[in-house]
């Protein structure tokens, strides 16, 4: 599903430049649930941004579902993001003046799905994350866990190839973290490829594979035995 080769990225900080990614090679198959770990500054967020087409790599190859991601202009990047990727953020990033349902409808709106269909689809996903009764609530009327579930539903609504989650449990307590991870695991069980950036080992252990980053390089890449989050819920 994802193939990257010799990925380099550096940021210019005034006169000096900071080499963040120093040649990353990574292949992720369809249906994998991968945790990307590393201390802050290890380059994990940069990697995720490049995978999410929010940022461009300086060097290297990136294939997403066999489509080379290269020299994209903003319009094309937006189209690809909409088609291929679903984002889950640490701080949820729900649009605060839109209801839960409307938030989920948004990527479908940008896909050009007709209104009625959009509403039905969004409702389906809301039901899937167990928040059907909260459809008309605004984000500030939802708890953190509920917000993240809405965000996951929103990311799923556009039926992306890959779900990218940047510290999805970073703002949640342990119990809700486990709930959210349970949801992510369930989505993964349905065959969705998911990347989770985290620095929490217990969250990483709930994935099927852990990629350790340090100073812009992969220092460890291992498959693990998944810990089921439902055991804690």
């Amino acid at each position, binding site marked *: 599903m994802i193939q990257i080769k010799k990925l380099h990225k550096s940021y210019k900080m005034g006169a000096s430049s900071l080499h963040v990614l120093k040649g990353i090679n990574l292949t992720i198959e369809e249906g994998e649930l991968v945790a990307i770990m590393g201390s802050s500054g290890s380059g994990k967020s940069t990697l995720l*941004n490049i995978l*999410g087409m*929010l*940022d461009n790599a300086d060097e290297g190859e990136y294939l997403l579902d066999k489509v080379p991601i290269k020299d994209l202009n*903003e*319009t094309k990047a*937006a*189209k690809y*993001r*909409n*088609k291929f990727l679903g*984002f889950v*953020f*640490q*701080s949820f*990033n*729900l*649009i*605060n*003046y*839109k209801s839960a349902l*409307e938030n989920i409808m*948004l*990527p479908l*709106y*940008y*896909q050009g799905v007709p*209104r009625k269909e959009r509403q039905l689809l969004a409702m389906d996903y809301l039901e899937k994350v167990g928040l059907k009764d909260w459809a008309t609530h605004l984000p500030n009327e939802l708890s953190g866990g509920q917000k993240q579930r809405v965000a996951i539903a*929103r990311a799923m609504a*556009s039926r992306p190839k890959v779900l990218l989650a940047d510290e999805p449990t970073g703002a949640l307590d342990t119990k809700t973290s486990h709930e959210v991870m349970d949801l992510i695991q369930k989505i993964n069980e349905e065959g969705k490829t998911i990347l989770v950036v985290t620095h929490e080992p217990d969250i990483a252990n709930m994935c099927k594979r852990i990629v350790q980053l340090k100073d812009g390089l992969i220092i460890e890449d291992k498959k693990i035995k998944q810990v089921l989050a439902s055991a804690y819920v």
Partner: protein
Amino acid sequence: MNSLKVLFDRDTWQEIFGSISKNKTRTVITVVGVLWGIFIYIALSGAAKGLDNGFERQFENIAMNSMFVWAQRTSIPYDGFKIGRSIELKLSDIEYLKKRVPEIQYIAPRNARGVFGGSASPQVVRKNKSSNYNVYGDFPVYTKIATKKIYEGGRFINDEDIRYKRKVCVIGERTQTELFEKDENPIGQYIRIDNIYFQVIGVHKFVPGGGFESDGDIFIPFETYRQLYNSGDSVQWFTIAAYDDVDVVEVEKDIKAVLKRIHRVAPEDERAFGGFNLGEIFNKIVGFSKGMTLLSLIVGIATILAGVIGIGNILLISVKERTKELGVRRALGATPSEVRNQIIIESVFLTLVAGILGIIIGAFVLAGINAATADITDFPYTNPTVPIPFILAALFIMVFLGTLIGLIPAQRAVSIKPIDALREE
């Protein structure tokens, strides 16, 4: 994406209403800025038009290119006459004037009692009521220059009245109410002017403006006046109308020059003949109201501009505040042009809503002023309207400026990279 399709898409509007209603106070304040601008524009240009109409009404009963000419005393000794000789206009001057000044369309000699110093208003008596009114001796041609509205059933002086020196008169509205009973028809009745009986043939409706006439004036045939007051050939003043397309100031000069020749007055004597040129004054007023209209246009457009710049400013702030939201939208697949369109449409929409509200409020205020001044006849303000093309032009300007100013925040919004927008701070 087709931008016209975007405009008619319900979802586009839903997105826009969503973001506009997010911050109501800010939206309202923004709208007020433009609303104020268009309101000033409408109110000012309406007021200018009202003044324009008002002036026109003041002059509606008299030809725009008319003038009065009268004789005074010479101020220069000439041709054997000494200084200070008083001059009298004569009926025979008319033929000369017509011949020498072909620009004259109508010329009406007039005499009057009670208007100028020297003669008192004659006493007018009817049965046991009496009062004093100004009496004019007129030819029918006078109505070609200054229209006299005569009430139903009456008429003005005609050629027959002149020929037979009939003792008939046209009275004013006030004369009627003061001398006759309420339900009495004055036509055919007799009144006594300086002890001579006159039959009333008409009642004229008084229209304000246009000089020294009043609603009590009595008009009698020129010839009858001549006999009654023994005025001979003399004429107190001429009311003259020039053709529409001539320069009335030049005509006045020509007329005075001819009169000076007839009456043997020094050509450079400026004081021998007096004149009051309505055309000249009218032109000044027209110039004034044109200036007012132009001024209101400039002030209005400048105020609209200020308001629209305000919208641009607010939207810039709004874009800054919504950086994160815009980043999320971009991450979810909004293309730069979708983001740009949304902000431009927001800008145009706010501008238009404000503009239309401003037009409505402006119209109400104009209607209010109109209603408040409707009864004040000597206030030159009538029917203040703003021509539809002005309004359309204003709306067009607003859409244009709204788009233009919207481009700035829209460009700012597009230039924000989603990654920067989403970066946790």
